[in-house]
């Protein structure tokens, strides 16, 4: 079975294409969204999703969130005393989603379409693909998130649509795509983005604004970094949510028996976000410029991504486009649904026979060259584009290069992605060396062909006409390319982790939540919650299903009451 997965920074979701429609698959708790959070204890027990998010409060040193932002980097997180990369943690989330599908359909899916931010670079894409493989999935295709959202939006009524813009501000990444739909073709005209801008940054801005205010004595800075960050992150998230509904909200953290809190107004928050809001403009302008469409011609501005719910962001968007955006698609569901539609397309489902989607490569790909400047000096490190950004994919392009010095014996190609004129401003994807027969400078020319496929896989062919030599390279990142053996080792390490049985998921999640509530409150309330936890633990120990269910219902009701009183 082929499934569609939205592997998000904050939340992930899985959807399947069944009976001519895409549908989201609920997780063990009955939720359609699974927080992208993982918590691993020293004994190897692992929590994924909401329970892990709750454990961020109680066990910050064992818990990781927002690891998608570290995708494609060598940065590791230490959980339960062991190191895990972003790929490993993502694999655990993917695995949980796979199990949800298995629970619903009785069949274990083996293939998936996974979404990535359009502006994810080649490294980040490769890492995502590997995460899928670690989770035991063969990744049929990576599809850009705004493209997936456009599919979900476009197929609502299957009618033609003039160019519209998908504005996708997620937890950690920002994408803009201009899309058109006609005759069943969903055509992405241009994409641009910022793979380092998302809802998390708004939280950080809020935390940076508020932490000196709530904590003039510097109590927070005395805490270990993980704990401090976890506290601030959660406080900021809660406060930001509250600010979406009211013009003022409380920003509060609880350190042991002390509660630090202060009120923040929406205006103050907006001012603190100003630099972030300004960064929303550039990708919009670039995408529109690249496809030569004026903002006024757009038929719609479609909002996707949880962060577009923030009123400050909505106001900025309204100002940016001089009109109200369209929020007819569910900002958290559209991407996963689109991924399922793409899965249906890839599986050649008859219901999608008349639908095609064409996408673009949102960044420029090319090689490093040197050239002589006006004073005869050699300028190295220049970027020579081969595939220009926003070219329709799949695409294959060839450029010719020649030797620069006499009797040059080899040509070295650094392969880069990005928009800077000098390669040091771009992302390096790999290296390639081609021997050439020694001749006078400029006499040897080589043809370099770049082929970029629909999933964003780059292949390079170099041909030397002089001696007929050829080289081929499928780009894999240099330093963090794991070999087969290492992949197997990592898979085995993940397999050793102890997962909670599915039927216990509700208890486990509730227990994590109760513990988090305990941390969040002080005084009598805290003691009371401690008492309830003991009761619930006793019920679990009895192994009497009925008693457990009753205790669970009661605890959940009580926690709901406490948490409905106010933030924290």
């Amino acid at each position, binding site marked *: 079975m082929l499934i569609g997965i939205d592997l998000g920074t904050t939340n992930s979701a899985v959807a399947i294409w069944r009976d001519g429609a895409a549908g989201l698959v609920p997780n063990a708790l009955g939720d359609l969204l699974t927080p992208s959070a993982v918590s691993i204890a020293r004994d190897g027990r692992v929590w994924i999703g909401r329970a892990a998010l709750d454990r961020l409060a109680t066990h910050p040193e064992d818990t990781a969130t927002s690891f998608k932002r570290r995708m494609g980097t060598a940065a590791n997180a230490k959980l339960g005393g062991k190191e895990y990369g972003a790929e490993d943690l993502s694999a655990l989330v993917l695995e949980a989603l796979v199990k949800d599908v298995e629970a619903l359909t009785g069949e274990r899916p083996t293939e998936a379409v996974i979404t990535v931010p359009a502006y994810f670079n080649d490294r980040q894409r490769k890492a995502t693909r590997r995460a899928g493989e670690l989770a035991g999935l063969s990744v049929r295709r990576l599809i850009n998130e705004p493209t997936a959202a456009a599919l979900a939006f476009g197929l609502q009524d299957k009618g033609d649509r003039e160019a519209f813009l998908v504005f996708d501000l997620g937890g950690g990444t920002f994408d803009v795509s201009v899309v058109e739909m006609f005759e069943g073709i969903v055509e992405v005209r241009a994409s641009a983005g910022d793979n380092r801008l998302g809802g998390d940054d708004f939280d950080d801005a809020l935390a940076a604004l508020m932490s000196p205010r709530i904590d003039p004595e510097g109590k927070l800075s005395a805490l270990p970094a993980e704990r401090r960050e976890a506290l601030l992150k959660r406080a900021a998230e809660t406060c930001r949510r509250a600010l979406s509904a009211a013009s003022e909200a409380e920003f509060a953290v609880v350190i042991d028996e002390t509660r630090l809190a202060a009120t923040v107004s929406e205006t103050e928050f907006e001012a603190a976000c100003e630099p972030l809001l300004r960064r929303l403009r550039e990708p*919009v302008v670039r995408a*529109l410029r690249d496809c030569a469409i*004026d*903002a006024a011609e757009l038929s719609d501005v479609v909002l996707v991504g949880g962060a577009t719910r923030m009123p400050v962001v909505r106001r900025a968007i309204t100002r940016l486009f001089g009109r109200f955006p369209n929020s007819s698609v569910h900002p958290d569901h559209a991407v996963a649904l689109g991924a399922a539609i793409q899965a249906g397309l890839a599986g050649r489902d008859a219901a999608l026979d008349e639908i095609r989607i064409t996408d673009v490569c949102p960044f420029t790909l090319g090689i490093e060259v040197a050239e002589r400047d006006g004073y005869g000096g050699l300028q190295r490190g220049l970027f020579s584009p081969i595939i220009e950004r926003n070219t329709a994919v799949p695409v294959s392009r060839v450029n010719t290069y020649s030797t620069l010095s006499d009797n040059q014996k080899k040509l070295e190609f650094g392969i880069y992605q990005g928009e800077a004129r000098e390669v040091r401003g771009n992302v390096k994807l790999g290296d390639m060396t081609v021997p050439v027969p020694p001749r006078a400078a*400029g006499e040897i020319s080589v043809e370099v062909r770049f082929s970029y496929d629909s999933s964003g896989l780059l292949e390079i062919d170099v041909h030397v006409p002089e001696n007929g030599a050829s080289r081929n390279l499928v780009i894999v990142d240099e330093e963090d390319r794991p070999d087969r053996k290492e992949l197997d080792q990592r898979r085995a390490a993940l397999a050793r982790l102890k997962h909670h049985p599915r039927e216990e998921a509700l208890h486990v999640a509730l227990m994590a939540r109760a513990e988090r509530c305990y941390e969040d409150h002080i005084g009598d309330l805290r003691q009371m919650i401690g008492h309830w936890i003991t009761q619930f633990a006793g019920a679990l120990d009895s192994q009497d299903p009925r008693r457990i269910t009753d205790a669970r219902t009661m605890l959940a009701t009580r926690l709901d009451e406490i948490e409905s009183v106010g933030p924290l």
Partner: protein
Amino acid sequence: MSDASSQGRHPWSLLGIEPTAEASVIRKAYAERLKAMDVDNDVSGYAQLRQARDLALRLARVMGETPDSDVPNGTEDVPNATERPEPAPPRWTFAAPALPGAWDEFADPAARPLATQSLSTKPGELDASTMLERMAWAAAAARDTEQGGVTGAGIPLTTIDPFTAPLLSGSFVGDDALGLRPGETPAERLTILLDPERDNSGEPLSETETRQATRALRAILDEATQAHVSRQQQIEDWLAEILARGWPRSAPLLEDANQAFGWEREWSAHDARPAVQFLGARLRGYRFQQNVLQPDHRFHKAWNELVKPGKAGPFRMLGGPAQSDVDALLRGVRKHFPELESHFAPERVASWESGNRLLTGLLVLLGILAFAIVVAIADSSNPSPHPTHDAPASEMQAPQSGEVSDVVQASVVEAFGQGRDASWLWKNQPDLAQTLTSNTLMGVHAGTDRGAMIDKAVTLVRMRSYLNGRKLSGELFETAMQLRLVQLQAAREQSAHACRQMSDSGWLDGALPLSPEQRAKERAFAARLVEQHALGMPKPDGQHSAMIPGELIGKILKSTKLGQNDVIAALNGKGSDAHRCAVTIALLEATLDWTGSNRRDILMTL
């Protein structure tokens, strides 16, 4: 597009439809064909289909505008259709040339994008009276709008002449703090302050003017942050143009504008807009200049030395900057901020430069009665905009429309004579063919006039044969030098400056006034070079020096009627253009008639 046969194919036949102005028909045909193909296994087929679709849509738009005209086919040129009243700015797919000098020099109209062309109304129109009229009109327009119950920002976009002002809303009563007269917008104030045609445009902004300009800029930037994206873009484009045009007076304003629009992130991009690229280079230079004026900067002393007028004395290094610092500063400035060299006193630069190369040799030689002089010419020291796209990288198979290949063909005939064609050039001198093609491609993109593109090609070929001529031997070398004499004489007829430029770089903007016979010789020579594969990219061949015997000096003195000191200065690359030109021509003439032992050495320096 990777398939040459596709270029000639009609977009209509590829789409399987009759020519039509109906976009929906084209889209439908495209959709049907797309659905029938597996794009992943037919990458070039997909590329062709898309190209055909895009071309067909463009043709359809043209046809829609001129219903009575013949149906254009794919091989014809698509006019620079600005179909919409507000054309969206095109993408800059070409790199701008190096950036010395003023914006007007830099912004070769041919290389200018469509959108800014509409802005390039002659700056000369902006005299005070026109501006006063505009101000009155703007004020009236704003009043009307307000009475109509529309807020200031509600003025329809299409009525705004981007050159006049992006700002019609805002303060129309006089504002002393802003320096605004009644009815004047901040944009108009800024336009006036930065007007390059103004009397005092050669001077930097005064303190009051700077204050006014900064305030006006602030008001404009405030409006931009509040505006929607089309408007922001419009303001940004307008501002970039005004600031570029107003350089160097606009220098103190660049940083603020840069921060507001994030130009810093754009200007290092390979496809930055020309105005932004220009401003980026200026701002970096301006920042460097601000830093170097600080006493603790590494090159502070060297900078102060070079900006002093007059020659440096023989003991310049005592208490002055180190030679190595001066060298490093000069190298750095020339490489990164060429326009800053205008701050240096040329004589002083020359005396520092000669210090490490020529001076000692010259003194010794002058002592000898043979009256010998060392002449040094660095052939590539000319910092004028290099118009070719001579990177080792090149797009061999860039999409070529019929127009491109047509212009390339015409350029080849014009540069090498009848009977030559593009395939001949590709066969013998592929890199040149490539450069011509990509230049033409850029020209076509930018809507350059056909004649101008051909002229540019001829100039390029001339430059290459001129520079590469020094490396030839035997009879070809002789021909090259004869031709050189003719070319320099012709350039001299134009102006002494043109002559010097020609002799330094082989490059001359505009046509060289040559007779038809002389042109024929030029063509034949260039064609011979191509057949010998000798018309590749000119390579710097370092410096040449030669001893010039007294006999030749005597002839020069006689034919130029200049004084001995003037001649020696000119031979050392100093003195006025007119002198240098006269001496170069005289030396060339004299040497060609002479058969001394180092004849070739002397000619090599020319």
